[in-house]
């Protein structure tokens, strides 16, 4: 009987080791990124409107560390990417990531101790799909991340409630590129950033008729 219990113990230990090994590299990367963001947002010394610029610089540093902006932009531009000259590609990545950071970091600032649960990951080659769930006051929101490994695991798409960020922009960009030049698209993104910077009421920033 004793032998058996030792054996069962060993088995359980092996199983436990296997399952920790299964929470692989991408999830660890994502978790560390999200934890860094939460740490900044709940840091008492960074609270308040006066500390806003500080906070944003730090959040951007974290975001740059775990979002692959080039991969994200390339996929959002889809077929349009090949029509861009290399210089336009760089410009596009810069403008698009600026727009995303500006708007979504502002959204993150509303963080109010919501809890993030990690529901599992799948890895295929150098890509990974991770499921998480954020528990809010009156509902839970499923958020999935798609990651790719060039040098490190980086996020290139976020799927919130079934809506993929990359694909949402793909639709918008494809529509604009079907009528306009790549330069016009880049200019439109820059115009949007400018009007947000000028603190214009969002009310006035409705896109032009596409």
């Amino acid at each position, binding site marked *: 009987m004793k032998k058996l219990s030792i*054996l069962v113990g060993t088995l359980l230990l092996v199983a436990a080791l*296997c399952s920790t090994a299964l929470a692989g590299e991408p999830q660890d990367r994502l978790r560390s990124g999200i934890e860094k963001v939460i740490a900044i947002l709940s840091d008492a010394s960074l609270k308040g409107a006066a500390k806003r610029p500080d906070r944003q610089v730090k959040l951007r540093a974290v975001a740059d560390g775990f979002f692959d902006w080039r991969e994200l932009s390339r*996929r959002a531009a889809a077929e349009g*990417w090949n029509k861009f000259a290399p210089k336009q590609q760089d410009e596009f990545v810069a403008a698009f990531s600026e*727009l995303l950071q500006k708007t979504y970091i502002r959204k993150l600032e509303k963080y109010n101790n919501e809890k993030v649960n990690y529901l599992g990951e799948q890895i295929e*080659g*150098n890509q990974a799909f991770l499921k998480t769930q954020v528990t809010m006051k009156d509902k839970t929101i499923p958020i999935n991340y798609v990651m790719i490994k060039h040098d490190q695991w980086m996020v290139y798409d976020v799927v919130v409630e079934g809506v993929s960020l990359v694909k*949402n922009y793909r639709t*918008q960009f494809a529509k604009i590129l079907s009528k306009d030049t790549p330069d016009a698209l880049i200019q439109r993104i820059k115009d949007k950033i400018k009007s947000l910077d000028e603190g214009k009421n969002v009310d006035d920033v409705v896109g032009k008729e596409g």
Partner: protein
Amino acid sequence: MHILFRSLLAALALTLVSATFALAADQAASVAPKQARPSLLLAYGDVDIWDETGQIIKKGSGGDKMTLSDAAAQTPDPLEGWNRMWFGFNDKLYFWALKPVAQGYSFVVPERPRLWVHNFFHNLMFPVRFVSLVLQGKPDAAAVETSRFIGNTAFGLGGFADITADSKPYKPIGSTEKDLGLTFGYWGADNGLYLVWPFIGPSSGRDTLGYVGDYFLTPATYINPWYWSAGAKGYEKVNEVSLRIGDYETLKDASVDPYEAVRDAYLRNRFKKVND
């Protein structure tokens, strides 16, 4: 005893062997594709391995490049000009009327009571969910919804307290947040065309039909006289908006063409809900 011992030993050995293999395979997989994958772009969607829910996209004959969600997002929009007009109308309605009212309301009423009101209206919409679940042939989910409704109504102060939120059913039943539009979708109906209605917002041919049905299943519809009914629905709307201030703003700020962004998000989100 002997047999148990042996089977356990075998299980242990198997676990070790398979774990070794899995690790080796993993290593091989993570090394191999590195040089094989230069940054080249393939067309719409065929660079994706997973669809929105994490299912691996089966690639085969032509036309499989898209996920089902992509297909839903390509719902035709023949009335684009008309839709854009109402989109603009709803946008102004939100920023000029709904949002200021909701902000004033949330300034006076703290968040917790507003969540109670949210619970109350959600509980009251039980007929819509129940009928939809029954029509989808999901008796388990319909039964769970019914017991939640009875529990919350009888012991949750008429629905203001969501006391059943933490009680999970024994077996998974999927989402119970259903309406008739989703039911038609579950039956296999297409969106038809994309539509934007004043006051209601983004919709589709299918969801518009569903909305008409939902209207008759909504208890607040039967309040007499009509202006009390409209008042109750208006109040529910303001309460909901007060809990979601900022969501629409973010989407609109972040997008280059807000109309397209909302259209894509609506169609994909509805597609997800059909299958939840």
